[in-house]
């Protein structure tokens, strides 16, 4: 198979990129792949799409949103969304939260989904369990209120407050 860019050398680089949920196959020779920034030479990671990523970014902006994503900045490390797009690198772990809104669609374009389904660190497990319990309690609360079982509802509400506090998610009421 020949490189689809230069049509001269044989393609050694084959990959799929996902744009707008659609998979596009690309077949490039080493030289062209390198030129387009899609190659990272072995034995680093076989795959990298840094520059490709910048190509994906413009479509991330959703028209009509109050704040264009490029104005976003991470309060911890100062990285702006624009810089992130240019470098395709986060500055710190808080960037994820700072860029949360445009990040969802972006990750969907790269990975097809935007929700982690793998390993949970041991440290995060209790938190996850608490969150699950919180969800259950909120549902129970609704049911009790609907059933006008106010005494029980109050008890559940106290438990919810305690959990919310532990999770650092105190809701303004």
């Amino acid at each position, binding site marked *: *198979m020949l*490189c689809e860019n230069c049509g001269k*050398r*044989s393609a*050694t*680089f*084959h*990959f*799929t990129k996902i744009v707008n949920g659609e*998979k596009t*196959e690309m*077949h490039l*020779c*080493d*030289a062209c792949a390198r030129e387009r920034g899609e*190659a*990272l*030479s*072995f*034995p*680093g*990671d*076989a*795959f*990298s*799409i*840094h520059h490709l*990523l910048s190509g994906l970014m413009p479509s991330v902006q959703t028209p009509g949103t109050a704040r264009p994503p490029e104005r976003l900045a991470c309060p911890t*490390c*100062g*990285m702006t969304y624009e810089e992130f797009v240019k*470098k*395709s*690198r*986060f*500055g*710190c*772990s808080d*960037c*994820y939260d700072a860029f949360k809104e445009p*990040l969802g669609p*972006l*990750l969907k374009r*790269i*990975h*097809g*989904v*935007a*929700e*982690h*389904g*793998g*390993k*949970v*660190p*041991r*440290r*995060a497990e209790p*938190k*996850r369990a608490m969150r699950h319990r919180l969800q259950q309690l909120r549902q129970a609360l609704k049911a009790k209120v609907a059933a006008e079982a106010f005494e029980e509802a109050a008890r559940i509400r106290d438990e919810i407050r305690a959990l919310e506090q532990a999770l650092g998610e105190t809701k303004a009421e």
Partner: protein
Amino acid sequence: MRIESFLERPLGPALLGTQPSGAVAVSSRIRLARNVRDLPFQARMTETAAAALLERVRRTLEHPPEGVAPLTFFALDDLTPLARRVLVEKHLISRELAESSPAAVVLSGDERVSLMVGEEDHFRLQVFAPGFDLKSAWALADRLDDWLEAHFEIAYDEAFGYKTSCPTNVGTGLRASVMLHLPGLVLTKQIGGILPAIHKVGLVVRGVYGEGSEAEGHLFQVSNQITLGPSEEEIIDNLRGVVEKLMEHEEKARRLLLDSMPVAIEDRVMRSLGILRYARTIDSKEAMNRLSDVRLGVALGLIHDVSREMIDALWVMTQPAFLQYTARENLSAERRDARRAEMIRRALRPAEPNA
């Protein structure tokens, strides 16, 4: 362990194995990307913070994980550029780490484990296994990751998973890969049709060696592209399924070659063996491709006095930095080709003929 021990041997003990899968699958690797929550990522990292991280890792090794060969910490700044290049050729560190400072690598004595510190992510944990064995590599990586997590608060988010420097690694931070030797598919010209099909299932394939247009030595690396969404087990299962198919196709292609053109195939592998045994100078590309022929010959039962392990070792031994390192002197390109031929000749020397 001293760094010299790692630099002098082409393959660590952990990579020596005679698994049947090794006829096609050379080795398997699991890589996990992890970052410390309260430290700036590489793009914002300061030298002081990076140096402090190295120091923390060094101290953490006083409480090593269980069930792993002894781990040794090496600061990259303490290694010569040549030593770093040898580690790159052995796949123990990435090219990017070799050029980073301050950075370090923690190696297990058997070379099963390599923990890179100060790469694109704070931690890049690699576990290797000989042949086709992602399962045990993942099991060990998972355990070592637990150990890491017990000592460092790792950046993690319920929705995003493990937070990595680059959005292409987020989620599991997992890159699973298998290095495959596919001469059958290349010689029967099936490879061009098969590789594109692999991408349809979200995997990436590329040649392992060489800058040129062809995969030298017919060595390919297949790995997962997507890291977010599926679980680690699902990612590995998906890769495993495809690799199994590829291995089947390769075996079929080899049998086809042997059945349809036995003389031509035997001639090809024997010619390559002859050249490797008697050549006085050989460049890297020719060496790689001749070694590939001989490896095929061994697998097909046409060559009996060469072991597969020897070929796998020679693939590393004939790389430029390794040659340079073991020669203990600076070699010109010309001298390097001569030295390469000499090393191969010595390794493949035929047994004394019966008198």
